[in-house]
């Protein structure tokens, strides 16, 4: 879980915080939340496709 947290921090920070200011703006916060959700969605799609392919 720590590894996932580190990976997501890295990926979502790079995608959502383009020029870091004195606090996280509203749109940056929303982007981060969506980034986490979409990453987990993507993980599910990947798992499904991977398992289908192996069969």
């Amino acid at each position, binding site marked *: 879980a720590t590894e996932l947290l580190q990976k997501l921090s890295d*990926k979502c920070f790079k995608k959502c915080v383009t020029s870091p200011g004195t606090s996280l703006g509203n749109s940056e916060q929303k*982007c981060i939340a*969506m*980034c986490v959700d979409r*990453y987990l969605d*993507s993980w599910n*799609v*990947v798992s499904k*496709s*991977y398992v289908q392919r192996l069969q």
Partner: protein
Amino acid sequence: QQKAQIQQQLHALTDVCWEKCMDKPRDKLDYRTESCISNCVERFMDTTKAIGVRLQQKYKEM
């Protein structure tokens, strides 16, 4: 052990296909992105297979 290996492959695939298919994250996983990811997984596995075959040919030639 095999389970750990599969987990690791899923992580690698998610990374590759996330970079390939996800631009800015949106509020839903839209259809286009979802089919991009699912094609990405299959094409990546095709690629690995094709490379495996190619490497074996090369080793024989040596």
